[in-house]
């Protein structure tokens, strides 16, 4: 049902978000108009500001409104360890583990011939320059374990393997913590088996 051009347009606009269909868009719009116009103002202001000002960090390509993001600015981070990930969400996931003190590089995608995404779209040249100019000592390849993610890691590895001072590592794949073996899918189990560790070491 159409109500008014402005309301209809707003409902339509909300549907650009992933997982938001007509029903939930309608609920969100009615909520803001009916109950919380102040929150609506804040939402619209911060959306506008972010869209106007946020771009990518000059160094790691994470979203930021400054030249450098907080991680790259911080003097507490180990600047010789660099972790390559596919998305900004992956940076958040790794930060959340509280177990990584190096810096990141976001590809914003992976090599995918079918989608016509090549080395250029992923700013790989920038990554290669960064590794050289910062004298990175360890590069962690943390792309997704999909065919395209693997191809991306392989490509980066092949391009940088000749730097003697650079160690290149990959995330281990295996049984999830707390995972019961019988419920682990075959592919994961296969990887876990081939990556098994020697206990007598």
């Amino acid at each position, binding site marked *: 049902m159409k109500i008014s051009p402005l309301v209809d347009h707003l409902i339509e606009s909300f549907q650009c978000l992933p997982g938001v269909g007509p029903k939930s868009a309608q609920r969100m719009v009615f909520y803001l108009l009916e109950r919380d116009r102040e929150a609506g103002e804040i939402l619209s202001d911060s959306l506008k500001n972010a869209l106007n000002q946020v771009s990518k960090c000059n160094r790691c390509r994470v979203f930021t409104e400054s030249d450098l993001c907080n991680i790259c600015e911080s003097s507490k981070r180990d600047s010789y360890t660099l972790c390559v990930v596919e998305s900004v969400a992956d940076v958040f996931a790794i930060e959340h583990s509280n177990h990584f003190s190096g810096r990141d590089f976001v590809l914003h995608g992976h090599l995918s011939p079918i989608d016509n995404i090549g080395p250029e779209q992923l700013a790989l040249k920038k990554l290669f320059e960064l590794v050289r100019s910062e004298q990175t000592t360890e590069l962690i390849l943390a792309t997704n374990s999909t065919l395209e993610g693997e191809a991306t890691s392989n490509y980066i590895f092949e391009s940088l393997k000749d730097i003697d001072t650079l160690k290149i590592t990959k995330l281990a794949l295996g049984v999830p913590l707390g995972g019961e073996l019988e419920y682990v899918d*075959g592919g994961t189990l296969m990887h876990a088996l081939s990556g098994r560790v020697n206990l007598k070491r």
Partner: protein
Amino acid sequence: MNKNFNSLLAFVLHFRAYKETSLLVDFFTRDLGRITTVAKGVKRPKSILKPVLVPTSLLNIDISGKRELKTLKKSEIVSHFSLSSNSQINSILYLNELLIKFIEKEDPHPLIFDRYTEVLSSLENKIKTGEVEAELRSFELLLLEELGYGIDLYLEANTGKKIQESSTYFFDPMKGFLINSINEITKKDLLFSGQDILNIAKGDFSSDKTRVASKRILRAALDTHLGKKDLNIRKFFS
């Protein structure tokens, strides 16, 4: 009414994100050919559809739906091929792009499917460039054959005479191998020895020279039949 298809043998050719936790998955199935399905909620931790995320696996899938976009109901791994080296992964990406660009949706080609399965399985133990190339070339030959673009590797195209080891032939992707063609002078890169052509016919790719020849012949043929479509992978990894 919805149509159900159960126990289809399938490989994932490609997937992309769809809504928050779902994926649009392009499958190559043995019985239905290339189909697109939505794998609802597959990114949720306990989804039963998870096996579609395991690369290079032969799957057994159940789907439903009568329109072009089907729904994935179930997926199980039948066998997993352990492929991780550069040449292995790039070969699969290449084959997948070939299938997506050459095969129309819902046009079944069980022979191509079986050959694809064989290539994956033999790539598992093959890491030498020459061996990998031989696998790819013989796959391309079968693909063209199955799609009606087969290359006659035994007979000269104009005269129908047997190809002779000691003669030289010009390859015209639309016609085949020609002896004494006027193009011989201008397009030297499409000239091939009868010996190489017959080696390819026999599936003998052991000589470097034959492999180089087979690559050129098939590239010319594939490009011609692809028309305006490009194989992007050639731009990225060459």
